[in-house]
């Protein structure tokens, strides 16, 4: 499912709204989620999951072409952890038992 398919589905679920509202809403939600992670804030969506930044310490890497050692600085990477409900619904083992 792509962003535009998601917008179409939401527009169908909210027939009282104009289609532009669904598009704007999806954009606002995603922008707010990105902004939270960029600030270093967590996102917690009950029943879905949580997003946070994971810390990666600085390390010595290697340029794969030249074999030269390079210092890779510390960094933060976005991480998602599925919530219990999402985890259980997606797991085919649980859903067939």
């Amino acid at each position, binding site marked *: 499912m792509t962003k535009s398919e998601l917008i179409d589905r939401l527009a169908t679920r909210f027939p009282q709204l104009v289609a532009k509202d669904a598009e704007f809403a999806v954009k606002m939600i*995603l922008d707010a989620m990105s902004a939270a992670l960029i600030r270093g804030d967590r996102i917690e969506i009950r029943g879905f999951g949580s997003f946070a930044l994971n810390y990666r310490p600085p390390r010595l890497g290697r340029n794969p072409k030249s074999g030269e050692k390079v210092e890779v600085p510390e960094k933060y990477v976005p991480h998602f952890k599925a919530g219990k409900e999402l985890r259980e619904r997606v797991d085919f083992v649980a859903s067939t038992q």
Partner: protein
Amino acid sequence: MTLTKAELSDLLFEKVGLNKREAKDMVEAFFDEVRDALEKGNGVKLSGFGNFQLREKPQRPGRNPKTGEEIPITARRVVTFHASQKLKATVESTPRVNSD
């Protein structure tokens, strides 16, 4: 500060002009649709933010950490999230104090 569904619906109320009820329902529906797609086995691509993918993991040996007893971890399907290049780059280039 943690971002939750409550803040997201406030935002839709203030910025999109939905009424409070619609704003709350819209946020709920947004995550419901993503969850539904994943449950049906479809990945979700939200350009500019990231992709949710499904991975099938085979059974592997595990251990009860308390008793040390060996028990297999059953085969399962799990969700993985990959932030977009754009989001990763912006997160990386934003200076922050190491609070960990």
